[in-house]
């Protein structure tokens, strides 16, 4: 075991795959000399050269589309969309093209590519640089959707995404990049579609994604002090979703909180609730509580931002609420 930041773990997975296979290359805005707006791709240009580490124009449609074409020709492109908010520009290509070519061709084609993007509130980026839009992609058959929360997970899952033969939309989170944690000495692929129990507990399950995993862990510790034993589960892959893994935990605890940073309304948590209330109806002793951003664009001023974005306290409140129910 060694220690890596989330940022380094992403970089390592990219670099390792580029070392392993000529088909892997990366393109995106400012990823070359500058090393990406989040510093994730620093050093890759030096090691792999400008042919495989490609700065692009600000053309979110064309770069995803070019990734699709290259993927169809046997490459494994990684396309970076600098902020999730700008994925709104690429959706035609992702949803109508990448997700559907295999299907529409009756299985003749495959589109092995990764679309990496990141977002996240908590540093006053304003309304157009902080949205969490993973739910949209989960609605689209033909895509896989990954959203890891730890250095070890992001490393192993990104590797698997790069070598998956399908288009994968890979969500990172701005506030996770500096987080450091232990990772395996050598990169170990983590299969897509498997949830991870991050903390075991018996009274309530918190299903959390991205930064909310860490906020949930904080909440869990505080709840512990109240004598509430909290299990924290991270689905990690949102599509395919490890329904069994989630159901199993809830069948054990009989109570559940779902937490993400995205807006609650129509967020990923809604799907989790819908699945669980169907598959674990008789096991639920209380309504599943959802924790997510309040229904508002993200305001700039920190006080307003904090109010909207869910923190550990929100998760704790939800835990208490669900446990309070007789």
């Amino acid at each position, binding site marked *: 075991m060694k220690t890596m930041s989330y940022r380094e773990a992403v970089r390592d997975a990219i670099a390792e795959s580029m070392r392993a296979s000529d088909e892997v290359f990366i393109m995106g805005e400012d990823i070359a000399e500058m090393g990406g707006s989040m510093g994730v791709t620093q050093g890759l240009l030096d090691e792999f050269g400008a042919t495989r580490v490609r700065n692009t124009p600000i053309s979110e449609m064309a770069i995803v589309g070019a990734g699709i074409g290259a993927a169809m*020709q046997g490459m494994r492109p990684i396309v970076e969309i600098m902020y999730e908010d700008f994925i709104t520009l690429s959706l035609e*290509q992702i949803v109508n093209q990448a997700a559907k070519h*295999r299907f529409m061709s*009756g299985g003749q084609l495959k589109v092995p590519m990764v679309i990496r993007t990141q977002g996240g509130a908590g540093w006053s980026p304003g309304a157009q640089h902080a949205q969490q839009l993973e739910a949209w992609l989960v609605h689209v058959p033909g895509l896989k959707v990954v959203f890891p929360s730890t250095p070890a997970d992001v490393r192993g899952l990104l590797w698997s995404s790069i070598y998956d033969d*399908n288009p994968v939309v890979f969500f990172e989170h701005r506030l996770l990049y500096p987080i450091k944690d232990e990772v395996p000495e050598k990169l170990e692929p983590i299969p897509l579609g498997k949830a991870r129990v991050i903390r075991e507990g018996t009274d309530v399950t918190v299903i959390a994604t991205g930064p909310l995993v860490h906020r949930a862990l904080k909440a869990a510790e505080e709840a512990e002090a109240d004598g509430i034993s909290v299990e924290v589960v991270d689905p990690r892959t949102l599509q395919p979703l490890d329904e069994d893994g989630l159901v199993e935990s809830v069948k054990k605890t009989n109570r559940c909180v779902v937490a993400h940073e995205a807006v609650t309304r129509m967020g990923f948590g809604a799907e989790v609730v819908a699945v669980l209330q169907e598959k674990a109806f008789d096991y639920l002793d209380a309504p599943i509580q959802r924790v997510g951003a309040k229904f508002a664009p993200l305001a700039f001023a920190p006080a307003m931002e904090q109010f909207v974005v869910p923190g550990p306290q929100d998760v704790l409140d939800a835990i208490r609420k669900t446990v309070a129910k007789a």
Partner: protein
Amino acid sequence: MSKTEKKRILTEDRLREFLREMLLIRRFEEKVEERFRAGELPGFLHVAIGQEAVAVGVCAAMADGDVFGSTHRAHGHTLARGTHPNAVMAELYGKMEGCSHGYGGSMHLYDVERGNLGANAVVGGGIPAMVGAGLAFSMRDEPRVAIAFFGDGATNTGTFHESLNLAQLWKTRTVFVCENNTWAESTPGWQHSPVWDDMSKRAVAFDMHSIKVNGQDVEEVFEKATEALEIARSGVGPVFLDVETFRMHGHYIGDPQVYRAKEDRDEAAERDPIVRLREILQVTSEEWAALEAEVKEIVDVSVEFAKNGTDPQPEDALKNIYA
């Protein structure tokens, strides 16, 4: 210089072959219109009657290993590139023997073996993939070219402009074939583009090499497409083919064309690329009749083939989603 005097780089045999292919596409599409009106074909379809010379000329210029992406108006490109009429017709009938195994339909014809990476029902949607395919060829230094077909209407999509910029910037092995038939559905060129009779300007904006092509003259299409493909294949950069052509029928089958003046339709009909080539080759009535009979047979067989094809099982709908 009259057309017949022009120096010929193609043998007469080759030209006769082109004539046959164009006629096959024409009769195929007429049959499709007929079968659609008879209620036999699901969905909605677009024929490219009047534009056959573009499909035949460009596809003949392609080499093995070249790939292309097409549009909602894809029957001609697909047939011209060698997909069997049976497979195309079967697709239109939604059969497993279809070139997309019944998953695609008219607007999603694929034949990956022959380089057909898919017709696209989103205007402009298929263009950037051809930049990416051409990029892959460049990166691996393969002498292959990716060809994007699209219409004048598509040149108003942001996707188109981003794609041209990227292709020229990266010198991808891509050829852009703009089939300017002066209509985007019911919208005439002058209603959708300030410069609608010279699409090359949109390529020149990115310093892309552009070649003007009379799309009703299959010989010229072939020559210029050959030139374009050579340039792109060499790796010096992509090429834009600014092809002027005519849509002789409606936008979709059944389109009453209320928006179109009769003169415009008549003009289009006068520029029929098949009539033109037939005259140039001075095909006799007997030869013509034989050709018609040959083509008719192929088309009729394709309909029979399609009708006898296998319907997918309902549950097949859940296959082929993930690799």
